């Protein structure tokens, strides 16, 4: 290894949020920078200026994009932020995910986790946001989620690029013996125009690394951006059209063994009795090992190839223990419905006085409805998998994952090796949608690697194991009540929403000795924080007492609150005989960003024009992850059922860094939401999930896909996320369109239980 790493100075970058938040948790601690993890990884002739930039003497420039690429295009956008400041184009740089490191903490993901709505900008709200972002730094949680990567990286990545640029310019100034002010950067080189001399970054790298990092950095003003704000060619596209082995399942190592798992389909249950003898004798089987973690109990099969492992897992004869929850869907839903009806709620929004507003309401002015959604599985295309090797006291884990630092921590503990001897290699992910924020696949692979005599084991789950062992989107039940005024607009709404608490479920898996504090705002996220002004407006969250494993699925609580809130708003409009969009214009008048989105999507979809016979449109709006999204969908009656014809989307994301990627995410999110709305449900029988594969848990296919028209707005002054925001309004837009087409108000998802889709 080169000694260069040892003499490299590090650039300590501090966002303003970290400084402000220092008040809350101690300035010294917050300012303690993490070591640059690249120092330990440099090869000969390579140097690094900060955790995001490596420059080789051969002029190979590597940008670290430390958020996991699950298809959302984040590696491209993060690299563009750095490349912009280095004045390079993306085809001139290499992009890597980088090692697991606390230096890559995600503060933006936690910032919106506080008790304030996105549009609250008072001093207290902002201070708490900063403090929570600081917690992200203190914990060093390297995570990809919450549609937060771009917001988190926007300043940090540009500062990293700018700092490196300034150090390269200083080195060039010294070498050329001219003042730095006479130098410009252009296409990966520092240029002295007056003397027509230039030096590549590679030629300057060694000198630059010896220099001092700048005390402050100057970022390019927006009007000088060359990459940002324009659609870039994705850096991962060529690999993905040529079948390059970039995914977790593609990891190939010398001496590698293969494996799979068979875990109890009854959550939390252990094997009561087992007979492994038949499985152990199957050809190609190396070893069968018991697995026991906070995620579940079962067996790992190590074999000479994946298919042999699958066959042997099927041959394991085992009787599992009893479920700790009601064993079927009906029983589970009853608990949640009971919580919605009678449970003690925490009001996360409580404007006016709802109880008084309903006390004297005439019956004909009151609207009541109950809504339900089922559990959902993430089903990314690439089934859960991880490869682990424990050799000579060093643990290596290759895994498509969203949580590298947590995986390092937990797996090191399981393997009994120190964290510094544990390396997490994050591969490209064949989809994730929140599923790979869990740790189970890595824990199981680690336990199996302990039994493999130093050989690596690539552990691939079957689709059936994947479908039946998820951290599901929780089922939810909402009870809604509205009082309409004389003008048909709501004067009071009361929303009681019950589901399992995701935070509580995660604590059970990650920190079983801790208990959750305070209400879980994900239960009502998407209902309690919408930009509507209604004089009496209460939204209460009730945690249902169940322990089915639940977790983050694309847009989390918004994935069902979008449906609850917006389908109920549509009911209010229908009941009050007000056009649904006109009603939004009235109720959202205080929120110009929302209003602009509503007006834009109404204009695009020609909302005001009546649909021809056999066709109808539906509208919905959700503010989520800092972005304001309105959708209109048009559907048509056909002989084989309802066909989704076209969806219009208007989204205000504040600042649009890559319009092409944002549009792709908006349609992707909408299709994900429409898939769930049309036909997906995870149901239970005998304590186990009934669905197992794509024949009974399918998603939208090409022939069902509508066309899309997308408008990206930049009115709001804060940047929003994009990865999840297309999902929440999709289900209610469709349900509202079905009401407009058929007069049928469907309050339970999935919709195909009530109508047929073509």
């Amino acid at each position, binding site marked *: 290894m080169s000694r260069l790493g040892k003499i490299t100075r590090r650039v300590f970058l501090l966002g303003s949020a970290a400084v402000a938040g220092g008040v809350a948790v101690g300035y010294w601690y917050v300012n303690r920078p993490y070591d640059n993890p690249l120092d330990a990884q440099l090869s000969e002739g390579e140097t690094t200026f900060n955790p995001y930039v490596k420059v080789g003497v051969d002029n190979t420039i590597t940008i670290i994009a430390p958020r996991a690429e699950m298809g959302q295009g984040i590696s491209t956008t993060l690299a563009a932020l750095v490349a912009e400041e280095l004045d390079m184009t993306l085809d001139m740089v290499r992009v890597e995910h980088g090692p697991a490191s606390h230096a890559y903490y995600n503060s933006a993901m936690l910032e919106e986790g506080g008790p304030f709505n996105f549009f609250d900008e008072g001093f207290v709200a902002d201070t708490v946001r900063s403090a929570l972002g600081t917690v992200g730094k203190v914990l060093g949680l390297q995570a990809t989620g919450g549609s937060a990567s771009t917001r988190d990286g926007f300043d940090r990545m540009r500062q990293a690029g700018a700092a490196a640029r300034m150090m390269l310019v200083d080195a060039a100034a010294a070498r050329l013996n001219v003042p730095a002010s006479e130098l410009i950067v252009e296409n990966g080189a520092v240029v002295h125009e007056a003397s027509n001399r230039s030096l590549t970054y590679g030629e300057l790298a060694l000198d630059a690394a010896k220099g001092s990092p700048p005390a402050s950095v100057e970022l390019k003003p927006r009007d000088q951006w060359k990459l940002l704000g324009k659609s870039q060619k994705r850096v991962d596209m060529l690999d993905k059209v040529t079948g390059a082995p970039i995914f977790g399942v593609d990891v190939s190592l010398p001496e590698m063994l293969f494996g799979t798992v068979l875990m109890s389909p009854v959550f939390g249950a252990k094997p009561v009795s087992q007979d492994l003898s038949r499985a152990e004798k199957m050809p190609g089987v190396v070893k069968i090992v018991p697995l026991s973690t906070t995620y579940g109990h079962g067996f790992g099969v190590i074999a000479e190839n994946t298919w042999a492992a699958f066959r042997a897992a099927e041959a394991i004869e085992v009787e599992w223990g009893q479920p700790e929850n009601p064993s079927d869907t009906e029983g589970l839903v009853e608990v949640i419905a009971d919580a919605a009806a009678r449970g003690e709620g925490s009001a996360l929004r409580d404007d006016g006085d709802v109880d008084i507003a309903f006390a004297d309401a005439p019956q004909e002015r009151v609207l009541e409805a109950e809504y339900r959604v089922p559990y959902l599985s993430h089903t990314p295309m690439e089934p859960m998998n991880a490869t682990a090797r424990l050799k000579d006291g060093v643990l290596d884990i290759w895994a498509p994952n969203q949580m590298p630092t947590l995986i390092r921590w937990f797996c090191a503990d399981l393997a009994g090796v120190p964290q510094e001897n544990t390396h997490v290699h994050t591969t490209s992910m064949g989809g994730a949608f929140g599923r790979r924020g869990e740790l189970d696949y890595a824990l199981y692979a680690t336990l199996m690697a302990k039994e493999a005599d130093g050989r690596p084991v690539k552990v691939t789950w079957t689709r059936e194991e994947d479908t039946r062992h998820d951290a599901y989107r929780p089922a939810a039940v909402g009870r809604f009540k509205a009082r309409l005024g004389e003008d048909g607009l709501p004067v009071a709404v009361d929303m009681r929403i019950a589901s399992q608490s995701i935070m509580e479920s995660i604590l059970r898996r990650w920190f079983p000795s801790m208990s959750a504090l305070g209400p879980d705002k994900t239960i009502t996220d998407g209902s309690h924080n919408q930009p509507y002004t209604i004089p009496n407006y209460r939204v209460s969250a009730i945690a249902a007492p169940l322990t089915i494993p639940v977790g983050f699925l694309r847009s989390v609580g918004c994935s069902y609150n979008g449906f609850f809130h917006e389908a109920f708003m549509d009911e209010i409009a229908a009941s009050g005989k007000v056009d649904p969009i006109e009603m939004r214009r009235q109720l959202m008048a205080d929120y110009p960003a929302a209003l602009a989105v509503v007006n834009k999507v109404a204009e695009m979809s020609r909302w005001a024009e009546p649909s021809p016979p056999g066709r109808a449109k539906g509208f919905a709006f959700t503010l989520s992850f800092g972005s304001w999204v309105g959708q209109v969908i048009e559907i048509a009656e056909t002989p084989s059922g309802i066909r989704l014809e076209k969806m219009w989307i208007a989204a205000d994301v504040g600042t649009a860094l890559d319009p092409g990627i944002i549009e792709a995410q908006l349609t992707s999110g909408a299709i994900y939401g429409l898939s769930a709305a049309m036909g997906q449900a995870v149901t239970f029988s005998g304590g186990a999930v009934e669905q*197992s*594969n794509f*024949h*009974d848990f399918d998603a939208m*296919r*090409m022939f069902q896909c509508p066309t899309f028209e997308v408008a990206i707005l930049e009115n709001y002054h804060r940047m929003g996320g994009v990865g999840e925001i297309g999902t929440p309004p999709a289900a209610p837009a469709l349900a509202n369109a079905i009401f407009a087409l058929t007069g049928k108000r469907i309050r339970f998802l999935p919709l195909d239980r009530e109508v047929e889709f073509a």
Partner: protein
Amino acid sequence: MSSATTLLTAAAISIFALGYASAQEPALQPGEALAEWAGIYAVLSHPRCANCHVEDDRPRWSGPHYGATRVHGFNVQRGTDGSGLGNPGLRCTTCHFESNSKDLHGPPGAENWHLAPAEMVWWQKSSAQICAQIKDPTRNGGRSLEEIARHVRDDKLVGWGWEPGAGREPAPGSAEETYLALERWADAGAPCPVE
């Protein structure tokens, strides 16, 4: 339900037992011939057969894990050329090979997997309707009843109906038994039930 099943099974056995014993005997009485047809109808209308004898262009799925009978997933169709072999890019044989998948819910397989011509529709058709179709050369592929019986006995894809693989209920009886029943029914004048 169990008693009904027992009765049906007993009826089927008696029909087929009779068949074996009387293969060389003179033709059946009219009532017996209709009972023979009832056994044949039980086979033809069984999901293992009827799911791919559809009038529209879409085969059906049914079975314990599919809920109610429904259209085959993935937009699988007869084929715009009417061949029954699927469409370019998505042929029946893209997924259905020469043998059944060993995986539960995996694709079943047999030689030459395809959809029966649309005029040979059995799905959701009554006993009388199927009977009329079977006897109509314009709708049965121009076959004599003897040729139909041999087709049922010898064709590999037809034979799959009795060996459909794990997790699927086979058609009642066997290819040989159905062949013999068809022979006896034809010999007795191939009477059809009246609706």
